[in-house]
């Protein structure tokens, strides 16, 4: 009996596994970007678990320690480092590794919130504009054009003047520019979909406009929505970093990558890792998201290739 069961399990399991494997292989997942994005998300969620060091804890006695991972191999005899700070410390003795991990959280949080708001507002307006057409469409698209083209930094600065610096204002500034991209693309899709037979039939059957939009049109734009979102994340992270760098976001001293780069700027010659590391983190993460977005676009919606 035992032999039989073992035969059946070995017979079914590889089959099931093989199916999974061929499926994922056919998807051609970009493994490196996926790994980077996963790392980022894990850092953001489990920051407390990954490091026990407080990213804001100042310790002047341990200031300006160089990254141990580098100094161990390349540092001279006078190199000041310790393995308790694998990536070194900043001018106030704050642990770089811990600040980078908490910075990931800031980055993910702001981008996620801003992008979600932008997505909801943009999609809703895009759906309405595309479906209603005429002056509603014209009005929404004029505002979208203005928002799209207008320099984001300018928008952010106006908001900061209006409301003062802070996390919420970064979110608002990012949202104000992001919604238009969604609105434009979604509206384009809706214009094509609303001419299709099933929409006409729903209209004839007396289905209300918002039911048509929600039940018949929305499901058909989900792919586009996912693709735009994934293509936008990198840009949003970059924008958040720039605003933080300029001091338009979180207060100084907080763990955000943009702020960290700014803090290292004045001491770049002596304490080079201060700016180098967070900037590298931004670049790698944005690259990963961009590659991932390209992959999403190519897999889910080849017609967007040129957009």
């Amino acid at each position: 009996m035992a032999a039989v069961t073992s035969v059946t399990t070995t017979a079914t399991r590889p089959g099931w596994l093989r199916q999974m494997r061929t499926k994922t292989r056919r998807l051609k997942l970009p493994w490196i970007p996926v790994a980077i994005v996963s790392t980022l998300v894990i850092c953001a969620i489990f920051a407390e678990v990954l490091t026990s060091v407080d990213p804001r804890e100042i310790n002047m006695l341990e200031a300006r320690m160089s990254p141990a991972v580098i100094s161990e191999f390349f540092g001279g005899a006078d190199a000041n480092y310790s393995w308790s700070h694998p990536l070194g410390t900043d001018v106030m003795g704050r642990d770089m590794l811990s600040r980078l991990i908490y910075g990931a959280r800031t980055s993910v949080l702001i981008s996620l919130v801003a992008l979600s708001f932008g997505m909801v507002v943009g999609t809703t307006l895009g759906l309405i504009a595309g479906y209603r057409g005429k002056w509603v469409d014209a009005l929404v698209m004029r505002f979208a054009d203005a928002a799209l083209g207008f320099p984001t930094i300018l928008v952010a600065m106006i908001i900061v003047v209006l409301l003062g610096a802070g996390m919420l204002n970064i979110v608002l500034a990012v949202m104000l520019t992001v919604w238009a991209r969604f609105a434009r693309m979604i509206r384009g899709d809706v214009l094509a979909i609303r001419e299709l037979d099933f929409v006409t039939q729903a209209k004839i059957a007396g289905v209300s406009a918002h039911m048509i939009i929600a039940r018949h049109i929305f499901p058909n734009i989900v792919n586009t929505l996912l693709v735009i979102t994934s293509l936008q994340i990198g840009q949003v992270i970059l924008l958040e970093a720039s605003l933080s760098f300029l001091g338009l976001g979180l207060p100084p001293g907080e763990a955000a990558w943009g702020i960290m780069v700014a803090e290292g700027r004045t001491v770049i010659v002596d304490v080079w890792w201060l700016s180098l590391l967070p900037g590298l983190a931004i670049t790698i993460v944005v690259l990963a998201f961009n590659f991932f977005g390209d992959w999403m676009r190519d897999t889910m919606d080849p017609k967007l290739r040129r957009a």
Partner: protein
Amino acid sequence: MQRYILFRGIQALFTLWILSLAIFLSVHLTGDPAQYLLGSEAGRTEYEQLKKNLGLDRPLYIQYIDFMGDVVRADFGKSHILGRSAREVLMERFPATLQLASAAFLIALVVGIPLGIVSAVKRDTPIDMFAKFFAVLGIATPGFWIAIMLILLFGAILGWLPTFGRGGLDHFVLPSFVLGWAAMAGMVRLGRSSMLEVLDSEYVKFARVKGLSERLVIFKHALKNAIIPLLTFSGLTLAGLLNGSVAVEVVFAWPGIGRLMLQGIQTRDFPIVQATVLAAGLFYILTALLVDILYAYVNPKIRYE
């Protein structure tokens, strides 16, 4: 064509008006300028007196009419911090930004477009790989960070180039490269994809079948059509350079309006903020308008939409 220009002109004016309204409201509704100027320790009478002097005790719509009059005359008042008229400071700083943006734009055009075209023509060769890599990196790296790293490398370590302020031609190298890189990356990408598409079209195939030399096919037939999308894009890029110029000006201590704008915000210097934001907005809107008209001129389809 004239109707189109008129339509776009009105639209541009409308955008400008929205911008001015946003600025007016930002100063007059959310914050109290008199409060900012005096600080929290000021007495009640002082505060009332200042409000009267600034005209803040009048109804909002009258203040708005006044404000619009000032905007039209480009009179933004006196900077509290610098002690000079905001217009004067703006005029002094604007050329610096314009020069930097032009240099960056030129680099983007001169390097970006040929690289994109060559990358498409020599598809899948090392040149193509390099162009793609260069473009991908240009889009993903934050300009302010690249700026700092270049200062470290070329200024501090190698000592080849000046790293701050405005001066001779060598002062332009680092800031304009940093500012132009993202724009260049976009041009490489778009130039490549648009050239690839054109090379795949029927008429190019026909030209090849006809036995024209590859050189003639590319320069005489393909290039002209591949350039059109780049035209619109480059206009938008020029306007978009404003976006990056704030950070670049800050890092390189470039005395332009981007840095002035940021300083104005940090010191709550409203006349400066108003002047710089409106000037930047005007610059952007005019460029966009110009590009649209140029584009309609090149592409007749647009005019009749």
